[in-house]
């Protein structure tokens, strides 16, 4: 399969990339790892006239600690996040999630920026970023702004990013030491999108859950932040009743499509199952 023709641009600074996007207008698309964009260009579901490759912009690389948050450059690949000692120590849930994305070849190339900015509800990082209350740094013609992941996703492939903006960095607040975490993804085989998946973060004091956050992947047009489900855990010791309440609350906000991996009812039910499993695993890992 051969994509439609396009012009290729390879700027070396964010400023130049933003200027190009502004100048070229709606027919231009930023290119990160390309593992979402190139397949749809090959089937000609997308035919941008210009690709602005971000691979030549060195400032978009790297994973850093900055005071109370972790800053991940948009062009950091899944492999780089998996191999990062900093993330392994401070945010191990990212590694757990990255390892469930695609396959080894895809993880060498696929980036966090592409994964979160693309707006595909099947992508795994967006729900995790909602769970972690991450912020996305956007650079555009009119300067910089930050948008919370929880406010970024408007619909399938529809996000708060403007056409002339580039997502340059993902900023994640550093969670408390001793937190429990889990990303639970139900899929039939390697490389699949989730039938349903849940990201869970938990914090305990003296055996009682004092904070919880839950994100859901691929069970609606957008990733979901399951606020009510998390609230069902806070103040409890996370016993079976609390877990069942959280799973039910998570199922209640889903609106999955029926697809080759199962009917909507099944995927809604599996949302509850992944939430339960993720809570149980997060609890085991937490310092209670």
């Amino acid at each position, binding site marked *: *399969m*051969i*994509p*439609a*023709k*396009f*012009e*290729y641009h*390879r700027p070396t600074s964010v400023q130049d990339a933003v200027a190009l996007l502004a100048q070229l207008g709606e027919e231009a698309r930023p*290119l990160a790892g*390309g*593992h979402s964009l*190139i*397949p749809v*260009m*090959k089937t000609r579901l997308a035919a941008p006239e210009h*690709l602005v*490759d971000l*691979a030549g912009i060195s400032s978009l690389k790297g994973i850093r600690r900055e005071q109370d948050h972790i800053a991940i450059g948009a062009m950091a690949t899944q*492999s780089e996040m998996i191999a990062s000692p900093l993330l392994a120590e401070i945010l191990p849930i990212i590694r757990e999630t990255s390892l469930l994305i*695609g*396959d*080894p*070849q*895809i993880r*060498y*190339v696929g980036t966090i920026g592409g994964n979160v900015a693309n707006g595909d509800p099947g992508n795994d990082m967006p729900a995790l970023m909602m769970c972690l209350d991450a912020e996305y740094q956007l650079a555009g013609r009119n300067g910089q702004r930050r948008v919370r992941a929880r406010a970024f996703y408007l619909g399938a492939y529809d996000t708060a990013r403007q056409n002339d903006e580039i997502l340059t960095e993902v900023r994640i607040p550093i969670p408390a030491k001793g937190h429990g975490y889990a990303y639970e993804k139900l899929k039939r085989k*390697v*490389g699949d999108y989730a039938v349903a998946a849940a990201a869970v973060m938990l914090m305990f004091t003296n055996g009682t859950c004092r904070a919880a956050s839950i994100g859901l992947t691929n069970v609606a047009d957008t990733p979901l932040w399951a606020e009510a489900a998390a609230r069902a855990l806070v103040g409890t010791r996370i016993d079976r009743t609390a877990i069942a309440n959280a799973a039910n609350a998570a199922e209640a906000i889903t609106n999955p499509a029926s697809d080759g991996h199962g009917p909507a009812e099944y995927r809604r039910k599996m949302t509850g199952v992944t939430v339960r499993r993720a809570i149980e695993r997060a609890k085991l890992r937490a310092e209670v």
Partner: protein
Amino acid sequence: MSKVHVKMTINGREVEALVEPRTLLVHFLREQLGLTGTHIGCDTSHCGACTVDLNEMSVKSCTLFVVQANGAAILTIEGMAAPDGTLHALQEGFRQMHGLQCGYCTPGMIMRAHRLLKENPNPSEDEIRSGISGNLCRCTGYQNIVKSIQYAAAKINGVPYQEAAE
């Protein structure tokens, strides 16, 4: 649409060309350079038959434009054997352990296994299986592919290959 000048190293040889930006790396390798060892399987980045080594990463060359590989060092199956024809340990392993039947997935399997062994010279069976999880084989059931990679790992590490008891 303007063509782009690209320059890269493929199997140790410098290559320069003018390409349309939409040219996929796999088409460039096969059709412009005649390196037909890299196969097109699914053409949708699932099967891994088109896997090549690019800047010390395993990549699916059907999902990468040549222009993205500008300046890169690429290794394909044609670059694995020694110039005198002596097979690479992985090629020998696939032959000795019957790691292929129809052979269609083999170049991709070998290129992926090559990077896997560079990163992890002594992988467990589980690590091999997850390491090649982006490569599909419809003939072998993977059993002998795992053994082929274990054979190659032993040979590269200079230890005798011992087949695990079944």
